[in-house]
Every structure is written in C-alpha cells, then in structure tokens.
C-alpha cells in the first residue's frame, strides 16, 4: 500500500505536484495516467525518496521510504530502463543491488531467468537494446520479492511478446495480493492491464476510480442492437420510453440504457435479436476528454502559413505552395 497525503512539489515558481492525496491499494493493478509534464515522474520519484516533497507525505506500508530497512524487499521499482552503469554486466548490476539489501546471491540468477536474460547475464548492459534494458530493470524491481511494485512505462522498447509478458506479470503480481502501480502513456495497453486508475493533470488529482467507472464517467457508452424485426423493436422500445438512435449500418443505438432491460423487453415481445452489445468508449477517449485542458505540447492543425501559390483543390495540403511549383 502506498499512501500519498497532500503531496506537493515545487520547483522554483512551478508547482509540479499540487496537494496530491490518494492511496494505491494492494491486490490490483493501479494505472497512473497523465499527460506529459503532469507530474507523474516527480510523484514516482518522491514515492521512492529520490525527490523531497515541498509539503505533504508519502508512506510505504505506513513508513517513510528512508525508514524502510532493506527497501528493495518492500518496494521494487522500474523507473528508467537506463538507470544503470552501462559498463557493468547484467549480473553484477543486480548483484550490487542485492548485496545492498541483504538479498541472497542466487536470487539474482533467478530474476535474470524470470525476465529471460540468463543468456546475456555476463554481457555489459551498454550493449543492450532498450527492450533488454527494460527487462533488466524489471529484474531489479523483482529482486527483493517486494509487496509493492512500481513500473514507469514498462513496455517501452519491448516487443509484442515482451509486452504480453509484462502485462501478465503485472496482473499475476496483483492477483497475489501485491500492490502494483504502473504509469504509461499507452492507453490501449493500460485498458488491458489496470483495474484502477489514478489520473493527474498539471500536478493535481483528476480522478481516482476504477477503470470501468472512469470510462463510464468520461465518455459515451451505448448499446448496439440489431434485429430482423427492426420496426417492431423500434415500436416496443418507443413504447417503453427508451430513446433510440438509428445508426448508419441498420443497427439501433440506445444511449445509457441497460442491455438486460432491452433483452427482457425483446423476450417479452418475442422479438429476435441478432445483436445486443453494450459498447463502451475506449480508455483513450475517456482520458482525452478528462485531460483536454492540461496538455503541454499541443500539436497544431496543419495549415500553411501562406496560401498555396498554385491552389489545387484536389490535393490541398501543406507543402503545395512551394514543393509542387
């Protein structure tokens, strides 16, 4: 369990993290989301005692990080895949971490095996690809068999097999009752991994809810219905006071209803349904909705600064002005 209480970090004038209060609970994967510059990294660094909060507190299982005895056995973190000395071998990198926390040496070989790096254990880390570096970082996090795990962008550089593996690893760690806290920019990946979300924007807490609540609250969800008896179904739904929208492909869409209600209605009136599927927006859409205002680097619509010299209505885009002349 990680508890944040009024956590604040100020760099000069800039408030990077502003009065953040939340609890990261065990037994589930908690996703930590926010646009670039929202204060995610700063928060994670404060959790690990690397940065000092300007105000407020972080507690790991009730204790301050620097009061933990052998902290790697409480909390394992993957902060930055490249947070290691490139000239040191993978084995020695893990060994020095293990020794500093009194973890037996054979555990090093074990975690190397877990992440699939046994064959390159004696190689210097600087020859590693990003994905291999990431695996080594994950090995470091698992080293102390901690109750709490923290991953910052864990899938960075991993290939699909690796992504799949880390996703299942995080889920199984959570299923064992551990606390798993993971930040990522990949909404589609988060949607598959996290059970709970903590979302921050401009240093402030925007949401601390379950995944499904988050999506429900921040986007449109509807039910899609197809039926060979479309007209009858429309009548029945209309009678029941359900608002129906006809979508382009002949399907019907009901906003905000419950599929069981419609299923029961159809059964009562002996209407055959060929589809009755609840549709939810993606996590990405929900996230965009929520954080629309707190994004730092906006890309801009691509408009030419000067009107094209040879306007060609068929292919009008930037570059036309000078490139095609």
């Amino acid at each position: 369990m990680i508890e944040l209480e009024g956590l604040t970090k100020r760099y000069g004038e800039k408030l990077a993290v502003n009065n953040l209060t939340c609890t990261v609970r065990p037994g589930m994967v908690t996703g930590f989301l926010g646009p670039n510059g929202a204060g995610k990294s700063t928060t994670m660094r404060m959790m690990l005692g690397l940065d000092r909060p300007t105000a407020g507190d972080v507690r790991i299982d009730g204790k301050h990080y620097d009061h933990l005895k052998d902290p790697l056995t409480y909390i394992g973190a993957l902060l930055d895949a490249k947070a290691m000395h490139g000239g040191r071998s993978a084995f020695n990198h893990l060994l020095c971490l293990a020794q500093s926390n009194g973890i037996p040496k054979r555990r090093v070989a074990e975690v190397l095996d877990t992440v699939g790096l046994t064959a390159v254990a004696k190689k210097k880390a600087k020859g590693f690809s990003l994905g291999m570096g990431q695996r080594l970082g994950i090995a470091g996090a698992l080293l102390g068999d901690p109750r709490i795990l923290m991953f910052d962008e864990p899938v960075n550089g991993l290939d699909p097999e690796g992504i799949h593996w880390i996703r299942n690893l995080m889920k199984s760690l959570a299923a064992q009752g551990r606390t798993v806290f993971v930040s990522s920019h990949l909404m589609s990946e988060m949607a598959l991994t996290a059970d709970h979300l903590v979302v921050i924007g401009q240093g402030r807490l925007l949401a601390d809810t379950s995944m499904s609540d988050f999506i429900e609250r921040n986007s449109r969800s509807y039910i899609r219905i197809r039926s060979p008896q479309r007209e009858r179904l429309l009548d029945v739904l209309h009678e029941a006071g359900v608002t129906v929208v006809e979508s382009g492909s002949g399907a019907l869409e009901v906003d905000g209803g419950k599929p069981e209600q419609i299923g029961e209605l159809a059964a009562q009136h002996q209407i055959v349904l060929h589809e009755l599927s609840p549709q939810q927006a993606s996590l990405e859409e929900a996230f965009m909705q929520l954080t629309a205002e707190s994004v730092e680097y906006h890309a801009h619509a691509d408009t030419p600064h000067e009107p094209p010299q040879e306007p060609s209505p068929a292919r009008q885009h930037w570059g036309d002005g000078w490139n095609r002349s």
Partner: protein
Amino acid sequence: MAAIQVVRSEWTKIRSVASTVWTLSLAVVVTVALGMLISALSRHEFDKMSIKDRLSFDPTFISFAGMSLGQLAMIVFGVLVVSNEYSTGMIRTSLAAVPQRGTFLFSKIAVATGLALAVGMATGFVAFFLGQAMLGSHRASIGDPHVLRAVIGGGIYMTLIAVFSMGVAAMLRSPMLSLGILMPFFFLISNILGNVDATKKIGRFLPDQAGSKIMQVVPRIDDDTPYGPYGGLGIMVLWALAALLGGYVLLKRRDA
C-alpha cells in the same frame, strides 16, 4: 540497513567496471615509469649540478616525480567512482536501494579509498625501489632516516588525491565538469601558483603542494614553508574532508 551490506555492494560495483582497472593501473604504471625515467636522468645530471642543488638532492623525492602525472589517473579514478552514478543514471537505482544517503556515499568512499590506499601504497614502494635502482650510487635506502615515512606518505598522498576528487565529484556530479576543474587545477594552476612569488604563499596551502611535503626527505635550502611533513599531510587531509563534507551535504539536500 547494515552498512556492511552496502559496503559489500559498493565493492561489487567498483570491481565490476572496467574504468576501475584502467585508471588504477594507469596510476601505477605512469608513476613508476616516469619516476624511473626521471631518476635515471637525475643520476646523469648529478655531476653537472651546482653545489646548492647537490645539497638538496633528494633521491627519495625524485623517485616519486612520476606522481605529478600519475596523480591525474588517481583523480580520474576518484571522479569516475562517484560521478559514474550520476552520468549513467544509476544513482536513482542506488538511492532507491539505499535511501540512507550518508551510508550510501560513505560506503562508496570507504571502498574506493581502501582500494586507492592499497594501490597507492604499492605504487609508493614500487616507485621508490625501482627509482632508487635507477639512481645507482646516489640512491637512498629505505632504512635511512625519514625515508620510510616518505614512502608510506607517498601512498597516502595518492589516496588523498583520489578522496579529494571523490568529494569534488560528489559536489559537482558531472564527470566532465569535475575532471575539467580538477585536471587543470592539479596540473597547471597549482604549479603556476606555486612558482610565482606573489602567490607562492597561497600556493603551498593547496592540497597537492601541502601533501607532497611528506615525500621530502632532504629539506630544500632556504625552505620557509610554515609546516612540516605531517603538517602538510594534515592540510591535505583537511582539504579532502572538506570536499567530502561538501559532497555529503549537497547529496543530502538535493533531489536525486
């Protein structure tokens, strides 16, 4: 957190990077080889020297002449041991593993200092014996008065140079910045300050000039240095301690 765990971990760190091996071996090789060369040259020069120079001829000190260059390798060693943590990003991993920053820094410095001391002592003795062999008839013997002190002092001098560099690197973090300051400082500025009359009085309180006093057996004629060999070593120790303290205070205060 038992400090012994951290010391063991730091020992693994230091022995598992190539820079440790090459900086330390460079320190030995350069000091000894240059010392031998200068000793051999001095033997041939001796006959052409003035009386005054002959009187202050210090065979022990001459055999340590290679240290002026060899100490640079020691500086690189000291700087890299500490600043590698920062330049590679390892510091975040290290401090997450050992949040007690004092324990972390001083374990690291203890291990590196121990290693530097071992290498420094070996360098001192090897440089002395090989240097004396080159000096032929002008050689000093280890049993002569103050000679053993000078030889051991030479080893300590090398060690303290490394410790001072570690402290500076802990303050500055960047290896480039640390080396960019320390190298010219020891190689140029200290020499210049020490040789210009106006600044001589300041120059001799610099760590290398004060510390090298311990290696002198035959005092220079009209030497007006206000401290003796142990006083000089003491001044150098103070420099090293000050640098370490600065490094510790900054590490303690700042965000990793």
